[in-house]
């Protein structure tokens, strides 16, 4: 497959891994957080950890939009679909996220709520046009990657003068979450992070400029990395080199898609439609200031929170669940008591188990065989 296989080449991977092993300083530990779920997934799916030298440790960050969505927001979405009788259009990943009262959007659907899976917000707009007699709400989630598309459909709906379409906006911001992780680092004996594998798709939109202040202020190197396994491996090498040299700057490994200023057109669309929320509740991280977007008053008619007078109710995460510590990188999925016993991808308790990009789901699906004492080997 052209333009893809090049970035999954096992031969180059082995060479890179050898270079990495040679450059890692003996006895030194390199604790690197990959912020994005996309990186977590790539690392697990390609077995990338097997290629890393012992000193390099990858810590899974909170960059999975489904995982950080708090229970209260899912509850609100279910209420819209079940009690307000709307057609709720959502990305598939959110369907199985556990909500209050043993519900999820999938279960609400089974009970008769009109919940429809869409692959893009454009499909939601189409459904609204096809059903002028029904109210259609798009459940907008995601980091900066998906926000511009939501902005565009809101503007399209306005241009078409649609009166039966609105967006339940839950778009969140990456740099604010990274800052929040660093701010919570110093408050206890928690292990420090040495560097960040920075977002790929998010950075295509916002550029790598926004991380420069972060790297400088917290003295942590950031390498913007693509989502292919070779991208991740090369970025890890770039981080190790910075750490060895005592540098802490933003470097861009994903040069084929990311520039310093990012996608200015997309940024302009987002700025036209959205404004900063003072505070947003993240699952695992709690309330994070200036970390999310809401729809501007100009587009109030397309804001489901306004149209349906939705009030947010905070719901605590299940007690047994370690998602909070896992999303912050303080714990590994295997440290959670319910991992793989009560909480599995088929019956997720915590958010990290729901999406394939979640740290727990990735570890369960691709890596749990490594937790078993008997390490199976090919006996031929």
């Amino acid at each position, binding site marked *: *497959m052209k333009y893809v296989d090049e970035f999954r080449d096992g031969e180059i991977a082995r060479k890179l891994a050898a270079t990495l092993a040679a450059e890692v300083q003996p006895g030194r530990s390199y604790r690197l957080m990959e912020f994005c779920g996309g990186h977590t997934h790539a690392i697990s799916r*390609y077995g990338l950890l097997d*290629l890393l030298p012992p000193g390099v440790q990858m810590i899974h960050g909170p960059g999975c939009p489904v995982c950080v969505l708090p229970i209260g927001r899912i509850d609100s979405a279910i209420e819209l679909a079940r009690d307000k009788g709307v057609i709720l259009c959502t990305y598939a990943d959110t369907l199985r996220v556990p909500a209050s009262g043993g519900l999820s959007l999938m279960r609400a659907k089974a009970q008769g709520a009109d919940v429809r*899976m869409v*692959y893009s917000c454009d499909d939601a707009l189409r459904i609204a046009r096809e059903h002028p007699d029904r109210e259609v709400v798009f459940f907008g989630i995601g980091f900066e990657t998906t926000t511009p598309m939501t902005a565009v459909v809101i503007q399209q709906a306005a241009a078409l003068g649609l009166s039966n379409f609105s967006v339940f906006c839950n778009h969140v911001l990456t740099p604010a979450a990274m800052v929040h992780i660093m701010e919570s680092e110093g408050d206890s004996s928690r292990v420090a992070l040495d560097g960040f594998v920075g977002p790929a798709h998010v950075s295509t939109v916002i550029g790598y400029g926004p991380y420069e202040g972060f790297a400088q202020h917290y003295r942590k190197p950031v390498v913007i990395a693509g989502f292919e396994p070779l991208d991740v491996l090369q970025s890890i090498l770039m981080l190790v080199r910075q750490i060895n040299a005592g540098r802490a700057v933003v470097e861009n490994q994903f040069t084929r898609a990311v520039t310093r200023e990012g996608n200015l057109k997309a940024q302009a669309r987002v700025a036209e439609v959205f404004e900063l929320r003072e505070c947003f509740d993240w699952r695992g991280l709690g309330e994070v200031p200036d970390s999310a977007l809401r729809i501007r008053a100009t587009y109030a008619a397309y804001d489901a929170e306004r149209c349906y007078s939705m009030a947010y109710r905070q719901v605590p995460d299940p007690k047994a669940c370690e998602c909070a510590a896992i999303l912050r990188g303080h714990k590994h999925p295997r440290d959670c008591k319910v991992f793989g016993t009560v909480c599995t*991808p088929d019956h997720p308790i915590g958010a990290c188990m729901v999406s394939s990009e979640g740290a727990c789901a990735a570890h369960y699906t*691709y890596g749990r*065989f490594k937790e078993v004492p008997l390490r199976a080997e090919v*006996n*031929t």
Partner: protein
Amino acid sequence: MSYSRPLDLKHGRVDLSHGSGGRAMAQLIHDLFVRHFDNDYLRAQTDGACFALPAGTGRMVMATDSHVVSPLFFPGGDIGCLSVHGTINDVAMAGGKPLYLAAGFILEEGYPLADLQRIVVSMAEAARAAGVPIVTGDTKVVEQGKGDGVFITTTGIGIVPDGILLDPRRIQPGDRVLVSGYLGDHGVAIMSLRENLSFDTAIQSDTAAIHCLAGAMLAAVPSMRVLRDPTRGGLAAVLNEFACAAGCGIVIRERAIPVRDEVAAACELLGIDPLYVANEGKLVAVCPAEDAERLLEIMRSHPRGRHAAIIGEVIADPNGFVQMETTFGGRRMVDWLTGEQLPRIC
């Protein structure tokens, strides 16, 4: 049937009377099903088919499969031929030579008779090509909105020759795992037509009867441990079923798994893994190591197994984990499919 108005196969539609047991139903059965499936068992117009068994051979196998695929017509096939292939393959995967099929139809009121005829003709052709007649059947009609056009359940019976015992519990460490060809074609062909996905692709469903391939394989390698067709859940589901039943682990090599470039690209686009995508004309085989090369040769010399490959081996691992050596050089698990990848694929 003189003095009766002929079935309007051009503009007519299924109505409730076609399932009511009256003249309209008799006409539908006679003019459509009996006419196309065309055999003495059906012409006898009894509720069941009576047949003699081949003398003194082996055990009988019976398998059934319901088909609710959406859309009903897809690149490379339709629900008709799919329903014939699906059950023939289930009988064949038990080591059986398929003999006869039964077909049950649930039709939705309002469904065009012309489309129903296309489906029936496709079934008849598939059954004839496979040499397995449809000898009995049933027709029901449900009100509009209570079905989705056509659902078809087929049941097949066959004979497993003496000396053949296919059971995943016979799998042992050291055994080899083979697949008969490119994986994921059927699932991707269906996905390409789904209304909210629709993308252009030349990929055709691989729907086909593979009982002849299976027969040739079993004749050459009667020590075969197990055969299975990787339909819903794909190769990953089959390997996990094997590993679970056998109490062994399985290690496969990503590089060895045959996947067409177009299928790999479509899966990449959709964010899915071809290992989990459905097939309708492929099989997975496990055999003792010493027979693997010979089996591969037999498979490759058969038109339905030209792209067969040895993809991995069975290892001692009481956890029953399926692992894969990635092209990238790492190792990861190939777990069961979680949730649903795409409903109504077959």
